């Protein structure tokens, strides 16, 4: 049935077709790995250094449902009892508290919060520019990748000590 039918095809790449299939296969395997290298780097950097954002709980809205506490992957949310005093009476209520050292700004708590009591703010040294979080003082996004890398490096050291290549957002996508 097979047109070129050498069933023990393993040691016989003499058939150009089999050679073709093998080349394509190996090229694809390598391609997938190569293309992933960029993604690895971005995600690792994001997880280690954070995205430059921080979660903030608004106490008035938080109802202490512990959804964010359950969902935080970095153990950066604690549930504490807080005392509140109104003119008539006082009461205690459970609220979420962000442990800022651990927060990487993954937004997961803000997503799961049923009453939207968690908002994301930028960390110190970051700012929102053109709808994305960038390091404060970083040069604007260069349009071509290669050309303005040198020219943009000139105003950068005055504003921030970080080199422009250290911004994970711009390497990412």
């Amino acid at each position, binding site marked *: *049935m*097979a*047109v*070129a039918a050498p*069933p*023990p*095809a*393993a040691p016989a790449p003499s058939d*150009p*077709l*089999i050679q*073709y*299939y*093998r*080349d*394509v*296969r*190996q*090229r*694809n*395997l390598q*391609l*997938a*790995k190569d*293309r*992933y290298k*960029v*993604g*690895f780097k*971005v*995600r690792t950097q994001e997880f280690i250094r954070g995205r430059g954002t921080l979660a903030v709980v608004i106490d008035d809205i938080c109802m202490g449902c512990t959804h964010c506490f359950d969902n935080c992957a970095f153990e950066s949310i604690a549930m504490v009892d807080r005392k509140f005093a109104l003119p008539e009476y006082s009461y205690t209520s459970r609220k979420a508290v962000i442990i800022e050292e651990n927060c990487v700004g*993954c*937004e*997961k708590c803000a*997503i799961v919060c049923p009453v939207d009591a968690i908002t994301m703010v930028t960390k110190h040294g970051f700012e929102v520019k*053109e*709808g*994305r979080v960038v390091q404060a003082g970083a040069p604007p*996004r260069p349009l071509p990748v290669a050309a303005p890398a040198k020219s943009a490096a000139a105003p950068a050291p005055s504003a921030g000590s970080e080199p422009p290549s250290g911004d994970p957002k711009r390497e*990412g*996508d």
Partner: protein
Amino acid sequence: MAVTETEYGPGRTIPHPVMFRVLDSEAEDTTIPEIKVVHKAEVAYYPGCVDYYDVEMQFSHMNYGDTNHGIIFDSSIKLLRAVGIEPMVLDRSFMKCCGHDQLWQGKVDVFEKMRDYNTRIIKMLGVKTLVTSCAEGYRTFRLDYKLDGVRVVHITQFLYERGLRIPPQPETARKVRVAYQDPCRSCRQMPVGAVYEEPRELIKRVDNAELVELKTFRADAQCCGVAQMMYCNDKTKGLTRKRMDEATEVQADYLLTACPKCLTHFGCLHHENRWKPGEERYGYKVMDITQFLAERLPGDYPTGGNVDARRKEPPLPGRKGGGS
């Protein structure tokens, strides 16, 4: 992507795996490279993103070494050769992702870029029949692309109509019970050309395999739990578990599927529940239907297979990776 990134909605709120970044970034560059196809044919095989799944699974430590997606590529080539077809491989060095995930996540602009690019390449190479081994690719190429004059078939349909014959298995081979999971994309979400019969007919052609139906099947079939790679949490894992328990109930030896994503999610849970070597929750194997059929054919994989020495001993799940 900077301008088109939505501030709210699913595209924003769901933490994406690295794979989406990689696939999205493919759409950025739409210049057509110089394509050197050594073997041109009217039948083209599109493997999809199987290699990317492997790398993604390795990176996220989900089921490294346990589920082999790349074998779908190898098996499909072997099966197509067995029915006398020497396909041209539309590989990822010049094709892009079919854009299924992007479309279903609402990133329509990214999808349209991929669609236009892929359509141009397919027209340019003069493909008459596009064979895909991925249920999502089948749906996307058939419904969401406008490929006039190109026949898009799932590989099970193609093998069925070409009359794939599985030679008799050796006497020593024991009877196996095989369950088939209908992927939603190639079955109940296809208004035309739903692939219900063909995989079942192909399984019946293996003489030592007995086809058993799961509790829900065909158009009723329950989802594998996750659509695409959208999200993974306890709810989706619960759905996956429910589906895999159905296979345990019918005492299946193999749980087959025709969709690499189903394979990912089943394989993930299958790996997680293999706590110790002898204490598996799920005693059956999860694999793609092409792999199941190709293993029953004589001969080697013409593509050489994706041999990775580390694959031979998959680590047990857990932080330590089973070591010590």
